[in-house]
C-alpha cells in the first residue's frame, strides 16, 4: 500500500526542509551552551548554570536578548552590503546542510524515508562550494562597516580562507580516490562495504583536513579575523542585535558543517564502530543517527577544547603554515595515496 | 671639599673630579642623608651632565624633578628648580644635580644626552611651564594641549578653576 501522493510529494519534503533548517539551529543552540560551559569548566569556573537546568536555556536567553537589542548601522556604512552580509553567511551555511546525510534511509509503509533532503551525485562539491560562499559575507560585512578594525578583520579572513581551501581540497581528493564518488551517501556506504573507515586509511589527510577545517571556520588558534585582543571583535565589530546573532549562528553552523564533513569523510557517517567484530554486533541496534551525532559532538568538543588551550597565531605565520607545511604535505599525501591506490 | 664624604670614597672621587673639572662653575655641593647633590648654573648644565655621563659613567638619568620654590626660596634665587637624579650602574652610585630657573627662563634640553629625558621634560613643562630648548616635541604630556596654566605651581588652586579646563 503506497502512501497517499499528497503526503509523498508535498508533506514529507516540506517536513524534511523544516528539519534541515531546524537541525543546524538546534545544533547551534547546543553548541553555544556547550562552548560556554566547556570553556568555563576548563578554566575552573562553573559557567552559566542558572537559566534553566544547568544553564541549558542560556542560549535562548542570549538569542532573546540579541533579538531586542538596538540594531545600529554606522553612518557612512554601505547599507545594502551591510545588511546583505549576515544573510549571505547564514544562508550559505544552512543551505549546505541539505546535502548532509544524517543516517540510513529506511522504509515506512512502502516508502523509503531518506534522512537527507537531497542526494546529489556532486554532494561533496556542493557542500564545499556553499561553505566558501560564507567568505563573501565576512568580506562584505567587514568592508561595508566602514571602520578600520572590521576592514582589517575582513582583509585577514580573505587570505586566510583562500590559503586553507587548497589543503582542504587536496585532502578531500585523497578520500575520493578510495570512494570513487563524490556523493556523500556513496562515500559512507563505501566505507560500510570496505568495513574500514577512511580516517584510519588516510591519517595524514584527516589531520590536515581537520586543521584546515579549523582555519576555514575562523576558530582558534586561527581566529585572526575576529581576534578580540587585537581587532576588538574583527569583522563583526559594528554589528549589533539580530545581525550580530546571524554572524554568531553562522559561525557555529559552519563549525557543525565542518565537523559533519570530517565525520562523513573520515569516520563513516552513521556507521557503528567495529563493524567486523562479531561480539560487538549489538551496537548495530543503536540507530545510525545517534552514532553520527556522537561523533559530531566529539569533534565539536575538540573545537572548544583547542580554543581554550592554544594561543592565537600571528597573521604571517598562519599563511606560512598553510603554504609551507599544509599544502606541500597534502600534495605529497595525494601522490602517495594515488600510487598506493594504483598499486593495490 | 665636604668633610663627611670620607665614609663614601666613591662619591668623594666623583666630587673631586667634578671640582677639578668645573671649579667655580660648581656653585654648591651638599651631602645629606647619604645623598650627594651639586648645584650648577643654567649655562654649565649641559657641560656638567655631559661630563657626568661620559667622564664618570653615570649613564642612567633616573628622574627629573621640577620644584616651585616660590615660598621657600632664598632671596634673589630663581623661583623654580629642576633636579637631575643620575645613577651609575655597576657601583650603584647616585648623584643629583640641581639647577635654579626663574619664571620665563628656559633650560637646554638634555634629550640628546639621555633619551629618557624626552617625556620627563615634557612632564616638567606640562606641570611647571619651564621650557626646554632643543626638545624634539615640547608639548603637554598629561593635560590636553589647550589647557591654560600649570597645575603644580603653588599658585594654581587645589580644587582647579571654575572654568574647568
Amino acid at each position, binding site marked *: 500500500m503506497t502512501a497517499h501522493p499528497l503526503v509523498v510529494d508535498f508533506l514529507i519534503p516540506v517536513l524534511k526542509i523544516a528539519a534541515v533548517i531546524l537541525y543546524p539551529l538546534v545544533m547551534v543552540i547546543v553548541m553555544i551552551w556547550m562552548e560556554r560551559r566547556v570553556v568555563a*569548566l*576548563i578554566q*575552573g569556573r*562553573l559557567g552559566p*548554570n542558572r537559566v534553566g537546568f544547568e544553564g541549558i536555556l542560556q542560549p535562548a536567553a542570549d538569542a532573546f536578548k540579541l533579538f531586542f537589542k538596538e540594531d545600529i548601522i554606522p553612518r557612512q556604512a554601505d547599507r545594502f552590503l551591510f545588511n546583505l552580509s549576515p544573510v549571505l553567511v547564514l544562508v550559505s551555511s544552512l543551505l549546505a546542510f541539505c546535502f548532509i546525510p544524517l543516517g540510513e534511509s529506511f522504509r515506512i509503509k512502502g516508502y523509503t524515508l531518506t534522512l537527507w533532503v537531497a542526494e546529489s551525485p556532486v554532494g561533496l562539491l556542493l557542500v564545499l562550494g556553499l561553505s566558501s560562499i560564507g567568505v563573501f559575507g565576512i568580506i562584505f560585512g567587514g568592508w561595508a562597516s566602514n571602520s578600520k578594525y572590521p576592514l582589517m578583520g575582513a582583509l585577514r579572513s580573505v587570505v586566510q580562507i583562500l590559503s586553507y581551501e587548497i589543503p582542504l581540497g587536496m585532502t578531500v581528493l585523497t578520500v575520493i580516490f578510495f570512494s570513487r564518488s563524490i556523493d556523500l551517501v556513496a562515500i559512507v556506504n563505501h566505507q560500510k562495504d570496505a568495513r574500514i573507515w577512511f580516517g584510519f586509511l588516510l591519517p595524514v589527510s584527516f589531520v590536515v583536513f581537520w586543521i584546515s577545517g579549523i582555519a576555514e571556520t575562523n576558530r582558534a588558534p586561527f581566529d585572526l579575523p575576529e581576534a578580540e585582543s587585537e581587532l576588538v571583535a574583527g569583522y563583526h565589530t559594528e554589528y549589533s542585535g539580530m545581525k550580530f546573532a546571524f554572524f554568531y549562528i553562522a559561525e557555529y553552523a559552519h563549525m557543525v558543517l565542518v565537523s559533519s564533513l570530517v565525520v562523513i569523510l573520515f569516520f563513516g557517517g552513521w556507521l557503528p564502530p567495529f563493524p567486523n567484530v562479531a561480539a560487538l554486533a549489538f551496537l548495530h541496534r543503536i540507530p545510525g543517527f545517534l552514532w553520527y551525532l556522537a561523533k559530531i559532538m566529539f569533534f565539536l568538543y575538540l573545537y572548544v*577544547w583547542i580554543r*581554550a*588551550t592554544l594561543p592565537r597565531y600571528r597573521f604571517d605565520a598562519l599563511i606560512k603554515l598553510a603554504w609551507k607545511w599544509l599544502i606541500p604535505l597534502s600534495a605529497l599525501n595525494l601522490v602517495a595515496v594515488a600510487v598506493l591506490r594504483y598499486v593495490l | 671639599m665636604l668633610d663627611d664624604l670620607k665614609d663614601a670614597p666613591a662619591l668623594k672621587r666623583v666630587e673631586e673630579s667634578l671640582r677639578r673639572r668645573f671649579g667655580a662653575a660648581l656653585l654648591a655641593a651638599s651631602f645629606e642623608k647619604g645623598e650627594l647633590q651639586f648645584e650648577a648654573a643654567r649655562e654649565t648644565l649641559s657641560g656638567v651632565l655631559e661630563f657626568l655621563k661620559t667622564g664618570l659613567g653615570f649613564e642612567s638619568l633616573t628622574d627629573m624633578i621640577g620644584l616651585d620654590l616660590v615660598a621657600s626660596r632664598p632671596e634673589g634665587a630663581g623661583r623654580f628648580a629642576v633636579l637631575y637624579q643620575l645613577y651609575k650602574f655597576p657601583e650603584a652610585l647616585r648623584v643629583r644635580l640641581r639647577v635654579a630657573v626663574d619664571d620665563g627662563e628656559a633650560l637646554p634640553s638634555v634629550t640628546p644626552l639621555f633619551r629618557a629625558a624626552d617625556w620627563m621634560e615634557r612632564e616638567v613643562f606640562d606641570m611647571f611651564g619651564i621650557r626646554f630648548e632643543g626638545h624634539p616635541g615640547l608639548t603637554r604630556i598629561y593635560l590636553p594641549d589647550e589647557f591654560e596654566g600649570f597645575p603644580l605651581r603653588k599658585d594654581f588652586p587645589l580644587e582647579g578653576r571654575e572654568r574647568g579646563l
Partner: protein
Amino acid sequence: MTGLARFLKKFFLVDILRGLLITLRYYFSPKVTIQYPERVRELPPRYKGLLRLHLDAKGEPLCIACLACQRICPTHCFDIAGERVPQRKTLWPVRYDWKLERCTFCGLCVEICPTSAIRFSPEFRMTLLEKDKVRFHYPDMYLEGEELQKHLCGGCLE
C-alpha cells in the same frame, strides 16, 4: 636534543598535546568559583566592609565626638557634632554623618579612634536605590545586617 628529535616532536604536535592534557586535567578538577547568593564566602575578621558605630555595655554610644576621625580622614567623609550631656563627662554625638561615596576604606579613622567606637563590619553589600541613601546620618550608623539592607535598598527583600 638532536635536530631529528626536535623535528619529530614538532611534527607529532607534542607541545600542543601536552597543553591539551593540562587543560583536560583542569576540566575535571574541582572548580574555584562558587554559586554566589546561595553560598557566600566566609570573610576574615579584619575585612574592611561598611563602617559601623558601636554602643558600650550600658547601651550608650562609645563615640565621644572628639572629631579625631574627621580630622584624619584623607577624603573628608565625616561631619560630626557632639554636645555636653549631664550623665557623662565626655560629649554625646548629636550629628554623625558619613559620606559613603567619598570613603576609600583606608582604615585611618578606625585606627585613630580612642574608644574604638567606629569599626569595619563584614558587610560588603552596598547596593542602594536612592542617591541620598549614600549619606549615613547618625542613627543609621548603628544599623547592622538585614535592617541595614532594608535601609539601603528599601524593602526589595520581601
